[in-house]
């Protein structure tokens, strides 16, 4: 183990770019599919009280399976393919995404939902035009955690050959050469920060009503505060579980 070899970086820009793109091609679909699965499940969990515990419990159980074991278990099904990596990560995003989506739907003010129904909206329209937009801040908090988590977890899939920047870890480890490992860590970190920033921007654009809050927080301070704390609570809770997960790796 030696110090960082700075000369390595300019020589490997091409490799690093390719691996970064590879990394994203695993992490991004994982979050996307996670959301596609989580949203309907969250809606069911939100509407049908009896299934709520079952759905949240099941996603928790899946989360506790060590990630490495997961990829190995998936191998007979999906083989040594990119799908294995994506599938594994998708399942990991579920716990965060389902929980936050349910909490998001819970946070929708009852009077808004009720007004929508009473105005004559059918259930699907109420869901799409009132409940989901109002749940968006909490759901997005979950998406951000899931995204950052996926980006850091991709490296585990390097065990089956689809680790993105994680390949740099294996490479460095096998050659007892620190520089690629450091490069991998820095790039993963950078990627996670950029993705998170991008999502913050997307959320800002999608929730124009939340922007003017600070300007005129005169009459509705209590209500605003309530939504804020629930958002914050939802963000912190899953991220702690995500950190614990790091040990499983």
């Amino acid at each position, binding site marked *: 183990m030696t110090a960082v070899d700075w000369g390595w970086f300019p020589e490997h820009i091409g490799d690093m770019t390719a691996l970064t793109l590879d990394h994203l091609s695993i992490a991004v679909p994982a979050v996307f599919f996670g959301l596609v699965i989580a949203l309907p499940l969250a809606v069911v969990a939100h509407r049908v009280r009896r299934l709520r515990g079952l759905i949240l419990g099941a996603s928790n159980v899946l989360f506790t399976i060590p990630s490495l074991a997961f990829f190995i278990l998936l191998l007979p099904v999906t083989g040594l393919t990119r799908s294995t990596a994506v599938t594994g990560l998708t399942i990991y995003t579920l716990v965060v995404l389902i929980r936050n989506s349910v909490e998001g739907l819970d946070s929708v003010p009852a009077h808004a939902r009720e007004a929508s129904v009473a105005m004559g909206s059918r259930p699907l329209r109420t869901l799409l035009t009132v409940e989901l937009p109002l749940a968006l801040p909490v759901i997005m908090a979950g998406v951000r955690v899931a995204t950052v988590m996926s980006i850091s977890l991709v490296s585990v899939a390097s065990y089956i050959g689809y680790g993105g920047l994680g390949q740099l870890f294996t490479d460095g480890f096998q050659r007892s050469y620190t520089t690629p490992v450091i490069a991998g860590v820095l790039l993963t970190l950078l990627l996670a920060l950029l993705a998170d920033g991008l999502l913050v921007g997307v959320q800002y654009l999608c929730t124009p*009503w939340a922007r003017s809050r600070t300007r005129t927080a005169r009459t509705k301070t209590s209500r605003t505060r309530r939504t804020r704390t629930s958002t914050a609570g939802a963000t912190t809770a899953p991220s702690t579980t995500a950190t614990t997960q790091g040990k499983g790796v």
Partner: protein
Amino acid sequence: MQSGKGLRMISFEAVSKHYPNGTTAVDDLTLELPEGGLTVLVGSSGCGKTTTLRMINRMVDPSAGTVRVAGRDVRDSDAAELRRSIGYVIQQSGLFPHRTVLDNIATVPLLLGWGRRKARSRAAELLERVGLEAESGDRYPHQLSGGQQQRVGVARALAADPPVLLMDEPFGAVDPVVRTQLQDELLRLQRDLRKTVVFVTHDIDEAVRLGDRIAVFRTGGRLVQCAPPARLLTRPADDFVAGFLGAERGLKLLSLTTLGEAEVPHEPVTPVRTDEPVAEIRVGGNGGSYEGTQGNWRVAVTPDGAPVGWLDAGALPAGGTAGDAGLLPLRPLRDEDSLLAALDESVSSPARAVARVDGDGVLSGVTGQAALHERAAVHHTAAATAEPAEPGGEPGAGGGRSGQEVTGTGAVRTAEATS
């Protein structure tokens, strides 16, 4: 205060609502609500008034009985379509926090497929109608005050011009001053629009103020009495209703009648102009003075004839004009003001009389305390002894319970009031 054309717009026929946990929200309700009338459902919490309201637009389905809107059983309509034809205003406005004011108002027109442009222009029209500035259209609900939000809630309910408007404690969460404004606005709107309004509140003063008819519910979802406010106040069906109406039923009744309606006489008066020199004011002149509490009181008016205060002609300063003398405050009353307001003014007036003005605010006469009391008592007796003459008849008679008159108590009350 007549209740519309008397056609039944909404009717409850032996309607009950029981919940699986054994509670009865509404018990065997039979009630007819006339078209164009404003009916207030009133009662303490848990008396089934909100459930009753929500059965009209199928937010709650009854366990037994039939609810009809415009003669049609609501269960025969598709719930969502029915709701689009019924305006609904809920407590704390229930506005969509993520939509601008204009988009909130346009909700139902958009659901009805009006198209965006037409829906928004209709929304802008309604914004003005409920007394909000056009600029508020692009704001979000949380940027408005509670009272403004409530106005938007009313505008949203009226957007598709529904014949029926349901209001569930709409003004419960605003302060008393704003609430009074909103009530005035609602009455003004209702004079123009003549919707069939069902209004739920637990505030009896609000009910008396707004309602053409008031339906009083008691715990267990039983309708006790449904009658026009004057009838309810003079002849409460039982002790429960009497208790709910509170101790000052006589005064509440006076609040319902204007001076014009009660034909309270204007007594001619010669006022003192504030620019009149003190030397020319004669004590007890021209029958214009009132021997009130410790003094000889005359009405002081501006050169335009608007009354400004009471002047004690017996205690004038040595020189100057009448305007330099200390005037005691006076609240001029128009014919549209209520008997209660006049009574209140007569109690606080040093002259034991009230100054009356015409539509332009010019003094038109005075009314002494005695005459006022006399008219108030006559009016009260008339209201108490009036036969139920409205075309819809006493509602809820089908149940054999509600709307029944307790004549004995009624007669006693009349005697109390006149003595």
